[in-house]
């Protein structure tokens, strides 16, 4: 019997199907994995994929991190479900793992998505679309990996309600741009509201952050490296202030190397 929301009930218990982005995989026992997925309609889900570490697994390759997949879950007794079928929609992981800067940026995106969905099975369509879009943009290689990551982090913060004030003073809302930037105050600050220890980013840095949060890629792609670095530092500091706990993957993001596939195949 199929219900309107894609759930199926039968003698095997409740099955449900959704499309999802694979955020994290963890080893379990001899040959299983626990897969953390951000689904379109069911929010974040953790599920056991049995036997996927065996070379004979029929769907292990589709459950690698960063893939967009169509999954059928069998509901478990607790919060841990099991995965019964998987089809690949767009397996971005294959392209990202051959490009180290993009792989590290994708890892930071996945960790941020996981941290911004603290409750399991609480639908968060906007975060799902944002995460899927960011991974798609990384795989498409149209923009530098670090820019895609910073754009994602700024928009994810806006989703969470922590968007930094960039065009006005975070304290008194006086229209800017302003020279000061204070993470505890919530973004750029005017000279009257500026707290001690506020940073002094250059005007191009704030312009880049505005461009990234609004999707103005013409401005973002033409920004100098030093401006990108400064913007990345402010975005990371702002995010981690609000998350209250540092992201493990963010310090490991490779912002230096140019992308070039180098592993050769022996024929």
């Amino acid at each position, binding site marked *: 019997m199929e219900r309107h929301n894609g759930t199926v009930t039968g003698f095997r218990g409740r099955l449900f199907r959704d499309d999802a982005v694979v955020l994290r995989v963890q080893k379990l*026992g001899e040959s299983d994995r626990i897969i953390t997925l951000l689904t379109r309609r069911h929010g974040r889900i953790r599920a056991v994929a049995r036997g996927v570490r065996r070379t004979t697994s029929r769907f292990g390759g589709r459950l690698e991190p960063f893939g967009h997949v169509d999954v059928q879950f069998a509901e478990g007794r607790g919060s841990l479900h099991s995965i019964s079928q998987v089809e690949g929609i767009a397996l971005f992981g294959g392209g990202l793992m051959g490009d*180290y800067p993009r792989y590290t940026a994708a890892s930071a995106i996945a960790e941020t998505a996981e941290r911004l969905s603290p409750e399991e099975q609480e639908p968060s369509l906007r975060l799902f679309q944002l995460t899927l879009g960011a991974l798609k943009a990384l795989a498409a290689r149209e923009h530098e990996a670090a820019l895609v990551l910073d754009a994602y982090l700024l928009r994810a913060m806006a989703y969470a309600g922590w968007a930094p004030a960039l065009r006005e003073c975070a304290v008194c809302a006086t229209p800017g741009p302003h020279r000061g930037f204070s993470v505890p105050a919530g973004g750029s600050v005017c000279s009257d509201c500026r707290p001690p220890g506020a940073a002094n980013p250059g005007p191009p840095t704030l312009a880049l952050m505005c461009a990234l949060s609004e999707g103005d890629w013409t401005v973002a792609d033409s920004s100098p490296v030093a401006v990108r670095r400064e913007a990345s530092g402010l975005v990371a500091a702002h995010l981690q202030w609000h998350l209250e706990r540092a992201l493990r993957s963010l310090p490991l993001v490779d912002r230096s190397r140019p992308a070039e596939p180098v592993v050769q195949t022996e024929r």
Partner: protein
Amino acid sequence: MYEGAIQDLIDELGRLPGVGPKSAQRIAFHVLAADPTDVKRLAAALHRVKDLVRFCTTCFNVAESEQCRICRDPRRHDEAICVVEEPKDVVAIEKTGEFRGRYHVLGGAINPLEGVGPDNLKIRELMARLSSGEVKELILATDPNTEGEATATYLALLVKPMGLRVTRLASGLPVGGDLEYADEVTLGRAFEGRRVL
């Protein structure tokens, strides 16, 4: 809850990976019923593994002396180093009998989500081995998953400028499997790595 020694044993066994409370209880009662000689042999093996086993100072495989059996073997050639994630991968490759070079065990793979970066692996030590000039080929045999592939990519970026031949183990269809059941990533890799017969 049991009393004294049996409960202590159940608690200790329950801390092992993959052993739940029921399994711990079953093993503890098996030990209780077993022949004392067998139990003493098990206890001695546990002591010996902690007292004697260490990591090889050259390749970081498990060893009972400063260097492992493979690093000490003069019949193996020094021109190729096969990089693996864990000591158990050395055993898997040794079983094939196809490789007669040396190994280097990284101790894991780069996994930013778990906070594991290049500095947490034995990559600096690998670079030191490669700088001797004896090695001509580096075989990257990390796991064929996202973390393993990313680690291989990172190592290839580091090592290529040194002028070494860097190769990666082929990925593709498992022997004994049906083509129709292969996922698109595996089948795509098999196509990429096809060879002329």
